[in-house]
């Protein structure tokens, strides 16, 4: 596209949002950008559901005796919160929304390798999601998101089957998406875009896709085995036949621990982009960041046993898994050090996306370091299944993954919608979320260390104060989530036009119009330089 054409007002130009109208043009689209937006709406919907469950839980915990609900209902609330947030919000969040929207544009392609498969993934995802919602509405599930046997196979009288089927189906959406991304990144790159010229977001998405491909089928077969055991009352996890329930835990965590990296790796990719853009500096240690993504994906497959230190697995297995869990901290720390080194002597601007990125670095570091506490056998004995664990993984999943997701949404929103959001509100929301988050979850570290177990509807009175603080924080956090929802929707109509490159960022996605034309680029771009060449860009801006 000629630059003159890209400068035209949004309404007078053909782009992916106005190229076609009507509900059919969305439901039958194969445009990766539209599919990304459909995921955005869908997972926001699921996020609200999961959020309501969390709100009710926090309200219940305002009083030691339980303020609101019966213990059975509480079990269903935390199960629903976990299942929906993990499988229907966090796992698809960045990959399915930003990955779909950005991967083809970042590599200079017209679309993903298999556009129809991409649309199918969304339908598969929605089928799984709606089935799970049915399970929730029909009466809920009380097994937790982990579906441990024999509770899930023999004792639970709730809608385990519908929820498991929903997750099984949604898993195929992950598999198809991962497959599509790997092939796209391998085969669709623009001329000149060699592997080490790729944006680090692409490396992160590649590592994530590998986990989708190799991990998801294992939870699929585990859920099939649960279904067979529930239906026919015989199965390979049934101790009556000599089967071992621990085998289910192994199979479950073989997927579900790498799934944690599915949640955090894409956020790390986003943060790599944000840090370098808003420091106006070439990223420090490009190769280290790129390979640390792959290392996290690879080592991440070998640490699942650290969820089972007290489940009866052998002490030697525990030792090995403990050591490997320490090992996975190394590539994670490599990233953190590289980001901070990039910030060093950068010319930093505190736009809203950057606030999320900086928040991410701090919160992820706390979450990661407490992960090392938990992978130490002796400490895990003490804090296993307490609020310490809850706080730890929320620092990774909310403080890490969700902060990265929101940072990414704010960074690429001008590209997605073509318009800017009110910057002041965005900064205020980012700070509210940061404060609310810490107020919610930091007290839970202390609660866990003092011995409060997770998953109970009631607790001894000595934990009262910290629980009240946590609930107060949660209400601030909730408010922080509502504000972006309002101003982002508002900006789609009333925001000022962003232009092709509002952040003066490098990367192919910023060379095309906002919103991009239906096939992203008028002509295939040719890449002739290293990524993140902000030194050169700074000179150009000074000249201009």
């Amino acid at each position, binding site marked *: 596209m000629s630059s003159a054409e890209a400068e035209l007002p949004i309404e007078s130009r053909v782009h992916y949002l106005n190229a076609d109208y009507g509900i059919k043009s969305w439901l039958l689209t194969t445009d990766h950008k539209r599919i990304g937006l459909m995921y955005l709406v869908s997972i926001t919907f699921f996020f609200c559901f999961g959020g309501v469950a969390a709100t009710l839980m926090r309200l219940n915990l305002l009083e030691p005796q339980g303020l609101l609900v019966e213990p059975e209902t509480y079990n269903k609330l935390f199960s629903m919160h976990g299942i929906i947030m993990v499988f229907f919000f966090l796992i698809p969040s960045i990959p399915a929304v930003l990955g779909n929207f950005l991967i083809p544009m970042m590599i200079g392609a*017209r679309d993903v390798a298999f556009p129809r498969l991409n649309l199918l993934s969304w339908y598969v995802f929605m089928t799984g999601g709606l089935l799970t919602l049915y399970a929730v509405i029909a009466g809920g599930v009380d097994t937790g998101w982990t579906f441990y046997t024999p509770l899930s196979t023999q004792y639970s009288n709730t809608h385990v089957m519908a929820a498991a089927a929903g997750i099984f189906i949604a898993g195929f959406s992950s598999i198809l998406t991962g497959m599509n991304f790997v*092939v796209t990144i391998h085969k669709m790159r623009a001329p000149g875009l060699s592997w080490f010229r790729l944006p680090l977001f692409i490396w992160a998405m590649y590592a994530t896709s590998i986990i989708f491909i190799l991990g998801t*089928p294992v939870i699929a077969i585990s859920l099939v*085995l649960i279904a067979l055991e529930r239906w026919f009352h015989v199965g390979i996890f049934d101790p009556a036949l000599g089967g071992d329930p621990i085998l289910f835990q192994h199979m479950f965590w073989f997927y579900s621990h790498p799934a944690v990296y599915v949640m955090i790796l894409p956020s790390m990719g986003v943060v790599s982009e944000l840090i370098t853009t808003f420091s106006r500096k070439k990223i420090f240690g490009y190769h280290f960041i790129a390979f640390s993504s792959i290392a996290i994906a690879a080592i991440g497959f070998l640490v699942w046993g650290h969820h089972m230190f007290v489940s009866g697995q052998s002490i030697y297995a525990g030792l090995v898994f403990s050591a490997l869990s320490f090992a996975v901290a190394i590539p994670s720390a490599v990233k953190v050090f590289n980001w901070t080194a990039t910030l060093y002597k950068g010319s930093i601007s505190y736009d809203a996306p950057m606030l999320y990125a900086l928040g991410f670095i701090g919160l992820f570091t706390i979450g990661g370091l407490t992960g090392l506490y938990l992978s130490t056998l002796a400490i895990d004995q003490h804090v296993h299944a307490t609020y310490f664990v809850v706080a730890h993984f929320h620092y990774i999943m909310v403080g890490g993954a969700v902060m990265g997701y929101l940072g990414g949404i704010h960074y690429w929103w001008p590209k997605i919608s073509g318009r800017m959001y009110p910057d002041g509100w965005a900064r205020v929301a980012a700070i509210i979320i940061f404060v609310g988050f810490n107020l919610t979850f930091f007290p839970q570290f202390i609660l866990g260390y003092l011995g409060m177990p997770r998953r109970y509807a009631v607790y001894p009175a000595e934990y009262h104060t910290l629980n009240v603080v946590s609930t107060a924080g949660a209400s601030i956090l909730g408010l922080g989530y509502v504000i972006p929802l309002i101003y982002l929707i508002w900006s789609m109509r009333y925001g000022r036009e962003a232009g092709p490159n509002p952040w003066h960022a490098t990367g192919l996605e910023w060379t095309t119009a906002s919103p991009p034309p239906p096939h992203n680029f008028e002509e295939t771009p040719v890449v002739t330089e290293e990524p993140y060449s902000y030194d050169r860009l700074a000179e150009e801006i000074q000249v201009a």
Partner: protein
Amino acid sequence: MHNSNSVVAEQFDDRIQQHEASNLGMWIFLATEIMFFGGLFTGYTIYRNLYTSGFETASHLLNAKLGAFNTAVLICSSLTMALAVHAAQTGKRKKLIAYLLSTMSLGLVFIYIKFILEWHHDYLEGLAPGLHFTYAGPHARHVELFFCFYFVMTGVHALHMIVGEGVLAVLLVMAWRGRFSTEKYNPIEMMGLYWHFVDIVWIFLFPLLYLLGARF
């Protein structure tokens, strides 16, 4: 929108890129399949080591001759599938149709033997856990566990066979209508990869399930 004569989809630059992309996609899909079956194979291996004699006893209850015959049937079907791919690449429509038909028929023979001669028979013998299990000989619990694995593993495999038959039927109709050419034979090639994969799974299943312990 690309027109129906075009063999290159709009997101690709040329036929080579499209061909490489679909090939890679299929191999990745097969990798996910390996992980899917891998969960079952892992569980099987663990219990087989724990309950060696129980699993041997159970294995002897299976009809190894039918299993061996079915193995031969599947290997032949892999041959006809490979010939179908070759016929497609060289643009021989009649041969393509003939080989696709023979692949489908051999697949149906396999499914018939599996469903009617083996599973149905096992059910009548009281070897079907959860439905009709009456075996009360030595190691009864571990025999039942073995049969859980047997039915799940061969069942999931048979499901893949049935899906394969369905796709083959679609490809057969397309071949009949002359949709393939030396320019466009990719779907046949992908089907070939899938079919060989399903065969290979059986090549592993047969000795693991049917040939435990000294028998002949």
